[in-house]
């Protein structure tokens, strides 16, 4: 076993164990950052597989994304620090089924796919190749990704911001009732309350 093999096994173990701990901890903050740790270990494996840009970008993206996820998890979950122990796992049967199916599917894909055996040269300019790809054959994908992300920006603002050009976004809205036509089950905006 070489040092690279050992590193691979250690990193894989970190990824798997921290991924498992995500569901065993009670604290939302710990869960988020354990998931981040799991992704970072995977990113380190990618770095070892001569994918320097994707690996580093994964660390970068996962750090900010898990940070933002922690913000929202704490914001919206009851008992965010897990002061009272709780169960983080729900819908057990369905999720066991889904997990097992995904695992089997991925294993089959890995074992039966004819993976290429071309060796990437140690000094291959992978980032440069990626750049040429983005500005050449994959230009359309790249451009549509840009526009899609703009759409995502607009959508996230529309969905999340209450303030806006035309006044509070919940003006005139009423939460739905528990049964069709029933009493609104939730908070009614102040402007509405005045009308009633």
């Amino acid at each position, binding site marked *: 076993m070489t040092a690279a093999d050992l590193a691979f096994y250690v990193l894989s173990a970190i990824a798997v164990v921290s991924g498992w701990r995500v569901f065993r901890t009670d604290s939302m903050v710990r869960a988020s950052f354990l998931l981040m740790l799991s992704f970072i270990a995977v990113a380190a494996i990618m770095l070892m597989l001569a994918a320097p840009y994707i690996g580093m970008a994964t660390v970068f993206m996962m750090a900010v994304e898990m940070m933002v996820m922690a913000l929202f998890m704490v914001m919206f979950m*009851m008992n965010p620090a897990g002061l009272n122990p709780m169960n983080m796992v729900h819908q057990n049967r369905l999720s066991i089924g889904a997990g097992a199916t995904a695992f089997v599917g991925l294993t089959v894909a890995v074992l039966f796919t004819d993976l290429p055996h071309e060796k990437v040269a140690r000094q291959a300019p992978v980032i440069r190749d990626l750049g040429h790809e983005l500005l050449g054959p994959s230009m359309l994908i790249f451009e549509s990704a840009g526009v899609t992300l703009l759409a995502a920006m607009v959508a996230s603002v529309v969905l999340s911001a*209450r303030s806006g050009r035309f006044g509070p976004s919940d003006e005139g809205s009423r939460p739905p009732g528990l049964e069709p036509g029933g009493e609104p089950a939730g908070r009614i905006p102040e402007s509405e309350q005045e009308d009633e």
Partner: protein
Amino acid sequence: MAVRALAWLAERSATPVYIACGQDGDAMAARLAQVPAISLQHSIRHAAILLVAGPYRDADRPALRRLHDQLPHPRATVWWGAVPLAEAQDAVTIAQGDHPVARLRRLDRNLLRGERASEPDWLPDEPPNEWRGKGDHGQGGEGMMGGVPYGRPMAMMGEEMRDALMLDAMTITIGPFLRTLPPGLSLELTLQGDVIQQARVVTPAYPASGGASEPLLRAARMLESLGLPDLARRAQISAMRDSAEGLLAAARRCGALLALPAELADVRARLEAALRGGTAPDPGEEWLVDRLAGMEWQSALLRIASFDPATLAQIAPAAEPDEDEEDGDEKERAA
């Protein structure tokens, strides 16, 4: 041996002091500002000595006890122009007119060398609420949000005034010895995030003693909250010398006035006047607590610090205490 070597090195650094300002404590703190051997800290956890400066009210005793116990060891308390509490054994007292630096340095040295014992706690060693062995898992909690896990309840949902998103409302009391607030002022704040939903005056600020240096001390407090500790110290030293020369120009150079947004135009006007050594008039019609509602933390502290004592006394009188709070105080006094 190692401990002695460490003490030999440590006693050469400036003495970190947390000053709990009583009546006129502000001006007393300013006298220490120009002494490089003393560094005044913002958090009690960063200090070695609690310096009670000036007479305090009976209502401030529980806060003083709490503050004392939060000091890290080795620790001591010095009473500068203040009467020691009954709990204080072997109390170090200094008359209000005397300069305390030599005593503070000696006390600090003795503490570091282990020649003076570190002070024990004044409050009983018990959690805020009994929790051990209670609840579903012996942690004091019940269900998802209930009970007192590890001694305290969890914050519960409350109304929100800015974006109407109902999340947890947290009630805290700050002061009366927080350095970024006027001395003596204690506020009960209900926060959602860092935005104040509701405020209540628990104890009012100490009345003004009518010193001419008061505007500069007030400016110093605002400059602290603006992240300009050096300029704040300069303002305190200017206050001792009764001359505001060059202070406004220096504050402008640092962008102290530019940093205040348009919503805080009133604060900017008061800061500018204070840096000149004067006071901008305030109609004093709206209550302080109403002016704080909906404000973000730093802006709120800046606004509170900007009022002169006379206005503050007018707009922030003591509110009627809650019943349970009275109970709490009594419990503490009995203990």
